[in-house]
């Protein structure tokens, strides 16, 4: 495993960086928030990313994808994270799209992936419930077998980019006890199905998240993704990959927050000198930098591990997520502190980073959750 970008990947990085600089600034994030835009991102920009081929990077060529690897995706996600772009990569590509690519039948893949990759179809994965916290196996939503298929009832929360989605992938219990890994099944539902309703949630980072309510929603046998009772096989894989992708985004975010803070330390003058000359702040800035470097290594290794289809993906996902969660929280907290009073104002952009850091930290599990999971994987 070489922890270095090759020439093509570096070119892709340049393209992505240019794209982000041209199309997005924190002003756009602010405008989306202030206007209360329920979608929370731009479909136009999503379409442009599709034209660049970004949405299909990890999907097979037969569906219009590029058949490339996760390292290429990492490069893009990091740049998006740097600019805090809210476009729905994690939800559409890494979660729902991946679930269908990995667990779907040829018919399901054909029906969904090409229009997902072209940016025309929006998807969401609804797995989290208000009691489940970070455990994707903890599912109370019920799917009852009927003569013609299934009836689903339950409530999903924090559904990433659930508002405005065309189809939603839902985890529901088909057998076993509430927290069993087995006995959970994934269903691909149309958002217009009778009994299915979606309500936008407003969280601190103002990105698109939603409650998905299922009130006796009918699903046909064809709507099942993969095997009945074996949804966790698919879900675990896609959540690991989405976790790793989210880490790339967090890496971009923490680097941007650090670089804003360094600029401030060099220009803000107090006691007649730039405050960055004070050793108390220098040492903390140096520690922040070290955190970003360690995080980068973990993120890069995790993406490469997916590409090499290794058994070590879950362990690397936990190492990367624990590291990135702690690092992004530390750096965004320190960033506000080092900006002083102005860092507390809504007018200053640094606040966007502390808000995003917290949401990202608690998406797919905090550092403590992943340390516990890692220990379990290692058998202690």
């Amino acid at each position: 495993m070489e922890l270095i970008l090759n020439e093509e990947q570096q070119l892709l990085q340049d393209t992505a960086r240019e794209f982000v600089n041209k199309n997005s600034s924190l002003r756009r994030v602010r405008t989306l928030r202030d206007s209360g835009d329920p979608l929370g991102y731009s479909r136009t920009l999503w379409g442009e990313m599709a034209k660049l081929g970004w949405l299909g990077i990890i999907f097979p060529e037969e569906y219009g994808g590029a058949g490339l690897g996760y390292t290429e995706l990492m490069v893009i996600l990091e740049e998006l994270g740097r600019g805090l772009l809210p476009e729905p990569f994690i939800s559409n590509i890494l979660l729902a799209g991946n679930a269908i690519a990995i667990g779907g039948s040829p018919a399901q893949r054909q029906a969904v992936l090409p229009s997902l990759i072209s940016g025309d179809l929006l998807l969401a994965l609804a797995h989290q419930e208000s009691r489940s916290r970070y455990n994707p196996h903890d599912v109370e939503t019920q799917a009852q077998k009927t003569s013609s298929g299934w009836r689903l009832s339950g409530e999903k929360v924090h559904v990433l980019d659930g508002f405005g989605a065309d189809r939603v992938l839902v985890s529901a219990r088909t057998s076993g006890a509430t927290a069993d890994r087995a006995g959970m099944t994934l269903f691909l539902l149309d958002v217009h199905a009778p009994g299915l309703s979606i309500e936008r949630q407003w969280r601190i980072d103002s990105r698109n998240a939603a409650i998905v309510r299922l009130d006796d929603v009918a699903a046909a046998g064809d709507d099942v993704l993969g095997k009945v009772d074996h949804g966790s096989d698919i879900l675990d894989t896609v959540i690991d990959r989405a976790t790793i992708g989210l880490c790339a985004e967090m890496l971009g975010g923490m680097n941007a927050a650090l670089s804003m803070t360094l600029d401030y330390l060099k220009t803000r003058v107090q006691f007649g000198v730039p405050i960055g000359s004070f050793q108390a702040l220098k040492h903390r800035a140096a520690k922040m930098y070290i955190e970003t470097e360690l995080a980068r290594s973990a993120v890069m290794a995790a993406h490469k591990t997916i590409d090499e289809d290794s058994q070590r993906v879950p362990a690397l996902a936990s190492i990367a997520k624990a590291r990135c969660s702690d690092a992004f929280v530390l750096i965004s907290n320190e960033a506000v502190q080092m900006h002083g009073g102005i860092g507390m104002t809504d007018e200053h952009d640094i606040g966007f980073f502390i808000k995003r850091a917290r949401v990202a930290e608690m998406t797919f599990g905090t550092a403590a959750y992943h340390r516990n999971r890692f220990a379990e994987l290692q058998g202690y």
Partner: protein
Amino acid sequence: MDTLEQFREETRQWLLAHAPKSMCTPVRVVDDLCWGGRRAQYPADVKRWLDVMAERGWTAPTWPKQYGGGGLDKAEAKILSQEMAKLGVRAPLVGFGLTMIGPLLLQEGSEDLKRVHLPPIGRGEIRWCQGYSEPGAGSDLAGLQARAVIDGDDFVVTGQKIWTSYADKADWMFLLVRTDPNVRKQAGITFLLMDMTSPGVSVRPILLISGSSPFCETFLDNVRVPRSQVVGQVNGGWAMAKALLGHERTMIADIFKDRAPGNPLLELARRYLPASAARIADPIIRDRITQLDMDAACLDLTLKRSQDSMKAGHKPGPETSMFKYYGTETNMRRRELMLAIAGPQGLGWEGAGFDESELALTRDWLRSRGNSIEGGTSEIQLNIIAKRVLGLPD
């Protein structure tokens, strides 16, 4: 490719034929390694392994043959180290000669100095030590005061060095002296090579809180060092010193990579703590172990990323400070955690009620408290990162 594969096969055969069985066992403590030097006493196999490797030039595989090296290029040297790793065979020789002064002489030394000093290093005949710190010049190394005054063909050196690792076992010292007291402190320093048997050199080991004495005080009383023994230019020693500090910090970070097979923390936890089934019952200790495992993994990955990027032609930067800082801090946290897990059994100094491994754990913990002090304190490393990497103002 074919010639490299051929080299690999020949190397493997040669190692199999020549490496003594006892040299294919893991090293327990640093003193198991062969450090060379006139006064060293070795077990027969250690000596045999040193001699046979030195004769082939493989104690210093990449040094040119005319200086006693193996004349291997990077690719061949990598193959040699891979094949040695596969067989689990120990390095035949370690020390500051190979890792510090040798590389510096190759880079900066005159032809005479290279011819005189490099071959004995490769043969393990001469052991070197490093005379940098002084009682008044620790973190502020450039403030060193040891004076060197020209007298005929010699410098006459007077002063004191401190924290000299293994000065009591070394044959030669490379040291920094002040040759011009009237200029900016960095500009009046010269880099000298000194025979430790010269009249006026005396050495006194320093007993540490851990009970061992890896460091010494070295007193220099009108020691005569020939002017031919200057590396680089007179008054140009600071550049040499900085080049070497980079080597030293990388070496220190490397030393702290945990090479023990398995997970010593887990084995300790299993021994001293209650467990329910396989799970360590104390959730706090368990979390601390995991955190350390992950941090060590991230450090290893970062070291690897840095090596990969150098292989791709990027110049190494001040990141050595990052490795020194994080490597030592992580090692110290590991020692602290081991002590916490051992509990009262980690309090022994010697004698009844403690076994060997417990006594070693205690001494290792005490010794580790110096990791963030030696080789440039953690605070100095953070200063370097803030200045050289982040560009923060003085």
